[in-house]
């Protein structure tokens, strides 16, 4: 073990209360950043969950629509125009919109209807734990997620309820299909969805376009745009990006998360900087002695940088453990905190950078130390 590392670690561990305070600062900061970014990822994943699970090559949506939940509508006549485009194999309409679910006591709770055809080109519920998707083709049959049992007062296939005054029966139970708006998704066939929402048969929300095998998707997308007016034609990735951008930045939610993360980094950096600076001041005569015996600036920087890195390694280790626990405990919550391996690596790099930046004040102080002070004392 190098003497620089030995000196750095012993100086750091010598004053345990200060070291603990420093670690608390780092852990506090890193966990906060982890949670904020994890929420951002979780939020981002949740707002695109329908897009991610739809079976389509191109989304055709109203020209003013921003996201999947947008209530703008298209004329169903567009379907024929889409099928005229070279390379388009199928254009499946999807209807979305809000409605009211009546509880057994007569109270109403809002639900978000997702109506689709089940010919393989629409949006079918996934993670089915009870019932069959095919049952949704029957009129009056709906699919709900088990996470909304309490909200909807149903808990198994076969239970009855009412939507907008119309009788429905639960035919499918899914697991983990949550809405970030907290309004439960309810799956059904497209005709029923129109009824529950109150949308005339001549309108639909989106079209899911499948291209013929071997067809260039981008070329087809461009052809759709030039052939059909008043619409957007987007690949799933483009629609995901547009939806995320709208919900995270159009609403300010993402900016708030990033601002929180940035503040956390600043607070963490300030705490570590304060700790390193006070530690350096306390050991000023040692650094002056090092300079007197001929230590180069680089050698002295290494001592301080090692202290910063030790703070980073230990602080990040503790923060990562807390982060894993947070992920575990929020796994079933309305808004998951998603921490990916990539995010962990980025946070580790951020922690190291944060601690090294924190060392700057201490380094500046040491650079100014005059070795003559060891003679004067």
């Amino acid at each position, binding site marked *: 073990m190098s003497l620089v590392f030995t000196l750095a670690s012993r100086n750091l561990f*010598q004053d345990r209360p200060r070291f603990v305070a420093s670690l608390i600062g780092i852990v506090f900061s890193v966990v906060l950043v982890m949670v904020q970014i994890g929420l951002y990822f979780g939020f981002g994943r949740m707002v695109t969950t329908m897009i991610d699970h739809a079976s389509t090559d191109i989304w055709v949506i109203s020209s003013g629509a921003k996201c999947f939940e947008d209530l703008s509508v298209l004329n169903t006549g567009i379907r024929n125009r889409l099928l005229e485009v070279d390379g388009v194999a199928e254009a499946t309409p999807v209807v979305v919109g809000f409605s009211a679910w009546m509880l057994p006591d007569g109270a109403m709770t809002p639900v978000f209807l997702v109506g689709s055809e089940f010919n393989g080109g629409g949006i079918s519920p996934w993670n089915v734990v009870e019932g069959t998707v095919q049952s949704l083709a029957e009129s009056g049959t709906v699919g709900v997620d088990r996470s909304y049992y309490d909200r909807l007062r149903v808990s198994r296939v076969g239970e009855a309820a009412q939507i907008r005054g119309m009788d429905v029966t639960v035919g499918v139970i899914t697991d983990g299909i949550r809405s970030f708006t907290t309004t439960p998704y309810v799956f059904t066939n497209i005709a029923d969805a129109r009824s529950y929402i109150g949308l005339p048969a001549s309108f639909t929300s989106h079209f899911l376009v499948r291209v013929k095998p071997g067809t260039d998707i981008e070329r087809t997308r461009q052809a759709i745009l030039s052939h059909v007016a008043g619409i957007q034609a987007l690949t799933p990735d483009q629609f995901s990006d547009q939806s995320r951008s709208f919900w995270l930045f159009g609403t300010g939610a993402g900016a708030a998360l990033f601002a929180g993360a940035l503040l956390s980094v600043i607070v963490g950096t300030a705490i570590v900087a304060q700790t390193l600076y006070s530690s350096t001041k306390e050991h000023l005569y040692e650094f002056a002695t090092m300079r007197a*015996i*001929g230590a180069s600036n680089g050698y002295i920087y290494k001592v301080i940088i090692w202290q910063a890195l030790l703070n980073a390694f230990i602080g990040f280790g503790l923060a990562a453990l807390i982060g894993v626990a947070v992920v575990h405990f929020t796994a079933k919550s309305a808004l998951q905190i998603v921490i990916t391996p990539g995010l962990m690596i980025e946070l580790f790099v951020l922690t190291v950078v944060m601690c090294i930046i924190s060392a700057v004040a201490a380094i500046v102080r040491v650079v100014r130390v*005059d070795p*003559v002070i060891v003679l004067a004392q």
Partner: protein
Amino acid sequence: MTGPIIDARSVNKIYGSGPARVQALKDVSLTLDGGKLTVLMGPSGSGKTTLLSILGCMLAPTSGNVEVCGVSTNGARPEELARIRRQHIGFVFQSYHLFPTLTVTENVLLALDVRGDHGPKGIAKAKEVVASVGLASKMGSFPRELSGGEQQRVAIARAIVAEPSAILADEPTASLDATNGQATMAILSAIARERERAVLVVTHDPRLFGFADRILYIEDGSLTREETADSKADPMRTVVDRDRMENVARTKFPAGSILDQGRS
């Protein structure tokens, strides 16, 4: 090397300006040769520490020139001065300035480590030098576990382990009792004589003159008088017998220490 290890010519040092202007050194010229222990004596505020700082390349003179092992320090940048200190000069401080979180061996090893001389050879060298100052049984101890005299011996070991050409000691006995003070001076004297180093000791204590090959007196920033072993100008010097003092000092050291080297 031939010639002086440290050669200072017409060194002036001025602090401040205007009414606050203080000339700490006035046209000081001196040389320090290998194999000699020089004592720099003077009252408080006479310029001893300033001169030591300039000779030790910690402070730049206002005018004049200092050469260390033939290298001029004129206009040298701080990193260059640090390199000269690292290569040619060892320091012993009044307050020892040991690193409290490092063991005796690690404190000594530090002087090698800053030179990039680490690894098993460096550790062996550090241990050898620690043993040579009579602290073989204390290698793993921390400074807080040592007496003042032992701490100063660690500081001396740190100063000599990299085998610098010059050792500059600032009041090395001021914090020690008489016996430990004499032991410290005996080591420094032995280093000068046996290892052909130029040793400069700044002190107030005339009882230590017996170890000196040469005594320089400084007053108001000027060197006012010089005595060598041959001159008996100062009656204080004649009453001190180096051999007797070394014998006293040897009681602090086990056999085989630096004081026994070169005496067979």
